[in-house]
């Protein structure tokens, strides 16, 4: 193989690798935006033996009451719309009205440490997929 041909083949290989790297990067960014609601805001305020509560707002669609799901210790507990009365969220200018709270009754839990997580359900892929997006931070609590 001639030196010139070899150099051209190397250029071809590098160009192909570069094109593929750019393609993967573009797909990764597109996938992130397709499966993640960047306008989602919310906090998991409280978790104890009685209730798990907080608020969640889609700032892109503030009039929508988003669906949230509660998991305790990585196990699904329940789902509900975030449509409970939370005037403090409105007063703090995090929502356009008073009705973006959520509240779940806690299930029977054994004594010890537990972790609550609340996820917003995000429909994407033209409705083909429903992905879960964590609201705020996981909340650790103890049952005596």
């Amino acid at each position, binding site marked *: 193989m001639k030196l010139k041909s070899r*150099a051209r*083949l190397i250029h071809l290989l590098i160009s192909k690798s570069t094109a593929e790297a750019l*393609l993967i990067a573009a*797909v990764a960014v597109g*996938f992130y935006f397709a499966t993640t609601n960047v306008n989602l805001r919310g906090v998991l305020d409280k978790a104890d033996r009685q209730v798990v509560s907080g608020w969640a707002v889609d700032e892109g669609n503030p009039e929508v009451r988003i669906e949230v799901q509660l998991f305790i210790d990585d196990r699904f507990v329940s789902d509900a719309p975030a449509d409970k009365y939370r005037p403090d969220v409105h007063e703090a200018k995090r929502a356009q009205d008073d009705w973006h709270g959520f509240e779940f009754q806690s299930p029977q839990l054994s004594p010890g440490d537990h972790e609550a997580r609340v996820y917003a359900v995000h429909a994407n892929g033209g409705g083909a997929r429903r992905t879960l997006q964590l609201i705020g931070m996981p909340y650790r609590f103890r049952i005596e």
Partner: protein
Amino acid sequence: MPGQGALAAWEIASVTSSVLIAEWILSAAAGASKAVVAIPIGLAFILMIGSHRLRGESLRDVGFRFDNFFRAIKLLLLPMLIVAIASLLIGLALGAQPNFLRWHPERRLIAQIGLGFAWGFVQQYVLQSFVNRRAQIIWGPGLVSILLTGLIFSVLHLPNPWLMVVTLIGGLIWAAVYQRAPNLIALAISHSVMTWLLVSTLPVSALNHLRIGFKYFT
């Protein structure tokens, strides 16, 4: 500048990675826009065709030829027969009833075998005309280059375990035959017929509709 062997290894890695990117990353992330999967495959074909030209390989060299067709068929017959009988016996042992109309029953069998030939031709071109030939640049004709070709063919069928085994066996046979009689038409016929026989004899649950890559899990 890399030597001939290093360059050939780079070419093999590049084409293999393109197929894996299409199977694992893009088919998982692309959703409804499946056309994006064709991009790395298209890039791989641009590389392969460019490589043939830069290395001065003719169509005849890479296996687009008729003069050795019967020699290739003759070399293929015995291993194909052994694999077909083994597949039938394994299928029966696993309780599968042979059904020679199972492979895409919505199509006429002859049309499906024709499509299988076209698809087999493309796969054999990538596997033999490119991977096998580049492996021979590194290690020369013989066991090591045959083994590498078979292994790559098997890896491209991850994570389907049954398909990985049969493609390893098929890949080794086809690579060995190609090194003796490089003829893509004979290999594509063999590929299509063997796919038909495997689909007809092995349990449907084992082959999982020949799904590979991310699609295997869907």
